[in-house]
């Protein structure tokens, strides 16, 4: 079989003249249409509404904004939210790392199921999560452990929903970790605690922080699972998201709710930025090796 050269001119052969222009136009359209539509969609759905919140937060001017944020109940809600988020994040970062460790380095029958259990809070609608926790740790608790209406209940719900982030952020990094460094340290005389402290944890630190960031963002905004278990008690278990909802329902103007929303959003973003910067610094020491 011989493949002709010029003889059997294939369809792809350039037609004189016409070839150049059409693809060019098509390419230019594609270059702008695709990102353009994406930006429009994002704007209509996300960016403009968020901007509206920011604008509305100042509906009563700067003093209105500060007033709303400093309103005793709202302020208490903000503080409670931040504190709870931090507490839960610390607990779950430790627990999450431990779980990831067991999932990666330990072997036992049923390990797969444990992995799915970790994913469960991730996929479960939060309202269902709230109900499930309530059923066990609420007024009808078979353990007679009634956490409903307490801060502990709030923390429980937050721990439930943020667990997957802590685990999933650490697990792949742990799995990829090169054991050579640990083995070298062992051969040089370090015991397991030292190896853990000086070799493993520093490598995991950026991933742990990633998980902490995600968990924190989630905890700050959590709503559905808290609706029933928190009891919504002002100054006690009323977190920011619940307070925002109450403000929205009860106020004539949306500005107080918007103000608190903006404050919550800004605090979250600032903390995330700080975490992010910390993570970048932790990840850099590799270079000095």
């Amino acid at each position, binding site marked *: 079989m011989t493949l002709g050269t010029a003889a059997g001119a294939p*369809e792809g052969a350039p037609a004189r003249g016409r070839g150049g222009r059409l693809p060019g136009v098509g*390419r230019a359209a594609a*270059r702008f249409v*695709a*990102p353009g*539509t*994406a*930006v429009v969609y*994002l704007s209509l*759905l*996300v*960016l403009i*509404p*968020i901007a*509206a*919140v920011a604008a*509305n937060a100042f509906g009563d001017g700067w003093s209105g904004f500060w007033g709303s944020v400093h309103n005793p109940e709202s302020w208490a809600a903000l503080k409670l939210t931040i504190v709870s988020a931090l507490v839960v994040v610390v607990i779950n970062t430790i627990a999450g790392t*431990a*779980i990831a*460790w*067991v999932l990666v380095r*330990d072997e*036992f029958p049923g390990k797969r199921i*444990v992995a*799915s*259990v*970790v*994913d469960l809070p*991730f*996929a*479960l*609608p*939060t*309202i*269902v999560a709230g*109900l*499930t*926790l309530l*059923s*066990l740790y609420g007024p009808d608790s078979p353990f007679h452990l009634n956490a409903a209406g307490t801060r502990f209940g709030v923390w429980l719900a937050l721990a439930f929903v943020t667990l*997957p*982030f802590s685990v*999933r*952020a650490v697990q*792949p990094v742990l799995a*990829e970790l090169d054991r050579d460094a640990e083995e070298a340290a062992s051969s040089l005389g370090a015991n397991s605690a030292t190896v853990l402290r000086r070799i493993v944890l520093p490598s995991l630190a950026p991933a742990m922080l*990633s*998980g902490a960031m995600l968990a924190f*963002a989630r905890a700050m*905004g959590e*709503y*559905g699972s808290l*609706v029933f278990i928190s009891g919504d008690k002002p100054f006690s278990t009323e977190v*920011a*998201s619940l307070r*925002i909802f109450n403000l*929205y329902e009860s106020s004539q103007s*949306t500005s107080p709710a918007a103000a608190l*929303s903006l404050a919550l*959003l800004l605090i979250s973003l600032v903390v995330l930025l700080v975490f992010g910067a910390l993570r970048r610094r932790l990840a850099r020491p590799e270079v000095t090796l």
Partner: protein
Amino acid sequence: MKRLLGRYGLRTAVLGYLALLVVVPVGAIAYRAFASGFVTAWRNLANPDGASTSGFVHALVLTLVVALIAVPLNAVFGVVAALVLARRRFPGAALLDAAIDLPVAVSPVVVGLALVLVYGRAGWFGGWLARQGIQVIFSIPGIVMASAFVSIPYVTRAVLPVLQEIGTEQEQAAATLGAGPWQIFWRVTLPSIRWGLAYGVTLTTARVLGEYGALSIVAGNVVGHTQTLTLYVGYLFDESDTAGADFGAFILAAITLAVLALLSISKAEKGSPPWRSRFGRSRSDLAVSSLSTTSP
């Protein structure tokens, strides 16, 4: 000896934590659903015109309709955004990247508030829309928008790493073989990202089905009209119909489990060759875990 103790100790602690926090509560609700919820359902099925049944059916239908609109919308956007971010360098790419992640940091009640401020009757666009006869808030479009808002990042975050890993060589080869841009997209690009896409779509669906907070502001909570399953369950609980709430929760949990199963299948497929990176694990695992930080 100490090592063994350490290992078993850790294992026990971890399993214990998971049991108390996750397994036992979920088991409890399953139990209650079967014990009392089913009875309620049975009773309701025997009485099809009963309020709670029709409310439930409405909620189910509404939830599915919303999912059928919001998920494909976000799937298309997600793929387009991923393609744009992976293949083109243009000013503002970093901004687009950050903007896609933004919904993740926003509390769902804030989402609801934000949408009302723009598309409500007194909102920026709402007035004009109302004059055209379009109602967004308290109506299906609003519910769809809220559900789409909270689930925006998932498809992009799942697909983008896959696109970056696969690179452009296959597409270039297709170009040299005579394929036009559309052909390249349909025959080469899309098939090569299909498992990443499946994973992202599954996460999006789970998120949409589970949304609550934003909807409690945007949907209006009118029984039989604008209540999704999640809102309905909340409503039942508020009305102290715990049996009904349990049943609804059970249905939602069952759907969730189905979604979880799909998740693990598509995750496994995603991780297998040829999508497995040369360095072992696909980076999308980590990227995807950055999803879903907004609570429904």
